[in-house]
């Protein structure tokens, strides 16, 4: 009797275990499909990230001056592509085309891979790559959205480089691998935010305030123990740009001067940029911009964007005149245009 009872117990356990495992697997599969087929197409960010290689190819096939802007939401709010194109066309008397290749909250460690994937391949180079940056965007150790990087901006060939520069420890590498294979895992921050927006009253504003407070509190506590800035990622980016014969202009973006003093331009970064033959334009103190032109410390209003775009054209325009190239380049316009 007892052995048959224990046998039936064992069978029940096995059935329970199987049912649980299969059920969880089905749920996981369902979640993954929902993420890939429903959530991804509805995300403006994910749609445009997936589109970047094609937009890059289209940009490179256009006649005239071809400019790719790389940056984050500051660039999105600050640069008006139509105005820029119009003013550059007037200035340079040749058709101009501009595309924005952006990722919210990103820095050079992400832009490097965006550019590498979209442009740094044979016969696909814009005439100019303009990198808007501020604060510590060009420094090592900037925050990295690993899920986004894994799903959209990197391939299997990037693993060694990622391990050397961007994924310093086992946890981050494991997160990258998981994000590479699971869209749900890669997009979890966004899924979390979306769900919380729906469930928690006024969550968006609350999260913004909390992040701002945390940022200020972290800033106050880390000024005493600031690590010296290093620029290996910048060096890497410049080396790749040089190898791929890409003309690069770095633009120091103006943050709201009433909120804080302008961020420093590190001498090391300046030296690296100029030594590589790239250009560095300092627009940190754009005098026409006041606090009314800002939504917050970084993002410009529409009126502010018009002013900044105009200043950008004035600063960058003369560099973009035909015949002006970075000193390390020997490529002609016709080379970069041929398929």
């Amino acid at each position: 009797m007892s052995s048959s009872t224990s046998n039936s117990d064992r069978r029940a356990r096995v059935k329970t275990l199987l049912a649980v495992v299969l059920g969880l697997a089905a749920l996981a599969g369902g979640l993954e499909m929902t993420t890939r087929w429903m959530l991804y197409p509805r995300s403006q960010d994910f749609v445009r990230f997936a589109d970047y290689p094609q937009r890059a190819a289209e940009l490179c096939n256009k006649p005239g001056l071809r400019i790719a802007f790389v940056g984050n939401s500051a660039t999105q709010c600050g640069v008006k592509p139509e105005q820029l194109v119009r003013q550059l066309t007037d200035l340079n008397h040749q058709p101009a085309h501009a595309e924005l290749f952006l990722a919210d909250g990103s820095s050079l460690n992400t832009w490097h891979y965006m550019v590498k994937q979209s442009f740094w391949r044979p016969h696909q180079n814009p005439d100019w790559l303009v990198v808007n940056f501020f604060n510590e965007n060009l420094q090592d150790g900037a925050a990295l959205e690993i899920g986004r990087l894994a799903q959209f901006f990197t391939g299997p060939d990037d693993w060694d480089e990622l391990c050397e520069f961007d994924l310093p420890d086992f946890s981050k590498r494991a997160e990258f691998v998981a994000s590479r294979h699971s869209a749900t895992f890669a997009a979890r921050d966004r899924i979390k935010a979306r769900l919380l927006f729906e469930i928690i009253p006024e969550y968006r504003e609350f999260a913004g305030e909390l992040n701002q407070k945390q940022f200020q509190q972290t800033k106050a506590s880390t000024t005493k123990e600031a690590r010296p800035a290093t620029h290996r990622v910048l060096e890497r980016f410049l080396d790749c740009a040089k190898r791929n014969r890409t003309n690069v202009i770095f633009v120091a973006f103006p943050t709201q001067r009433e909120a804080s003093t302008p961020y420093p331009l590190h001498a090391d970064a300046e030296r690296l940029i100029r030594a590589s033959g790239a250009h560095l334009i300092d627009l940190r103190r754009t005098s026409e911009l006041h606090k009314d032109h800002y939504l917050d410390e970084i993002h410009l209003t529409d009126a502010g964007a018009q002013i900044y775009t105009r200043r950008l054209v004035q600063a960058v325009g003369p560099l973009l005149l035909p015949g002006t190239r970075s000193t390390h380049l020997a490529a002609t316009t016709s080379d970069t245009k041929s398929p």
Partner: protein
Amino acid sequence: MNYNSLTFWALFAAVIAVYWFLSHRRQNLLLLVASYVFYGFWDYRFLFLILISTVIDYIGGLGVAGVQLKREKLWKLGLLIVLSSVFLCTPIHYRELFSAIREFDGSALVESLPTQASDFWIPAVVVLLTAAYGAALPWLYALPEARRRTIFLTISMVANLAILGFFKYCDFFLESTQALLGAVGLTASPFTLGIILPAGISFYTFQAMSYTIDIYRGEAEPTQDFPDFALFVCFFPHLVAGPIMRAHTLLPQVVQPRSFQPGAFQQGLILVLVGLFKKIVVADNLAPIANSVFQTYANGDGHTLTGLDVLVGVYAFAFQIYGDFSGYSSVARGISKWLGYELTINFDNPYLAVSPSDFWRRWHISLSSWLRDYLYIPLGGGRGSKAVVYRNLLLTMLLGGLWHGANWTFVVWGLYHGAILCIYRLVGWRDPDPNGNLGSRLRWLGAWVLMFHLTCVGWLLFRADSFTVIAEMFQALASPWAVSRFAVSGASLVGFYALPMFVWEWWTGAENGLSRYEVGPWPVRAAAVGAQLAYVLFMLVIFPAEQAHEFIYFQF
């Protein structure tokens, strides 16, 4: 290396992959090495402290029991301590040393080694103390039994408390003395030693002390096997944040062969997943809410928050600290089950407590029982006059508060809990029956709400940086409450993250209720387990906090 890091799990996977294929002795050796590697990840220098504590209590425990160690063994232990002090407590630059060895660079090798006489002051002191203790041992062994037992116990206690006192409280007492001198008009130059607090020192020190005390009381047998005793002290699943294990509970599990119990895998998995959920989802997500409120007051900007904001911040901290601490204990128990060990339950639905004594029977059970058995009862416990009992309660809770950290706010927190224990005793409180008639249930409900908020008052004292912050926060709580966005969203988030955990623990009886999953028809069991696992896994994958936070109790 925390439980919420992949590095830990990679190391654990490497251990468990071979563990059950080894003999009992080799299992213990593997766990010992793994425990030292785990602890050394924090700061390898503090391995020396844990070794010192281990050797002192090993010799002390055997001395209390009347077992004389052979001279050869004593020499080996002395050598172990001296060599440890050389390799762990002198400024050897190991990275440069290994690099020099790989490259056969003699000059770099010499540069990586300490060369000044002053670099060896710790080993010098260790040699002297070790030699003195070794020289005294034959005399100690020759003493009459009662005196020998007392002296060995005293040496063990004094040594452990001296180490704990120095590393945890030295700077605190220096600063407090300077503040006191300043208050009476005497100036003293600010001076502290800048001592780093070793992770888990309060936990393993109390555990080691309980070993010697239990032997003295005849409640435990010592072990003559040094590696076994070392494993008892440093067993990694519970080393840095408990539960504090008693010798008569853990040591037999170390000494005797273990077998993998039926159901251990499933129970361990539930405990690990629930523990990670509590830490990664509940504690780490509520931390920014709590930190925002307390830090705002610490920065002097408390006027920007309302009383309701403060309440939400305190609620957030209440569930943060519970999720953090009970999560760690839960993972520790789960991992231990996979290794064939049974650790004591450390939390039993503490936020369902209806009185202070009920709370302390449910919160950090291993510490509260330690304090009860080794402090409260020896002081007289509940026997004697009311004044004596209240004194015992206040003293025990004061020391319990001080155990948590070197800050007067912890002392006040402890005294506060002592005070409410006394008050409940004074009024002759009896815990109402939650399963009785309607009146009894309503009394239970009222008592529960009251006790939860009394606990939250204690958490305010515990978490605040200073008495100024405490005063300002109480002032805000006593002022008219305005409903702010922070309060609404913050309270909603506290409910979102903490309520499911609370309900689950109420349903299962927390760690006591794993057997709930063993009863009922298999489709019902499958549905219950599956639904709960799906929820936990979904939350762990989708809802980890943007920033992982250190376990709160690691600082104790």
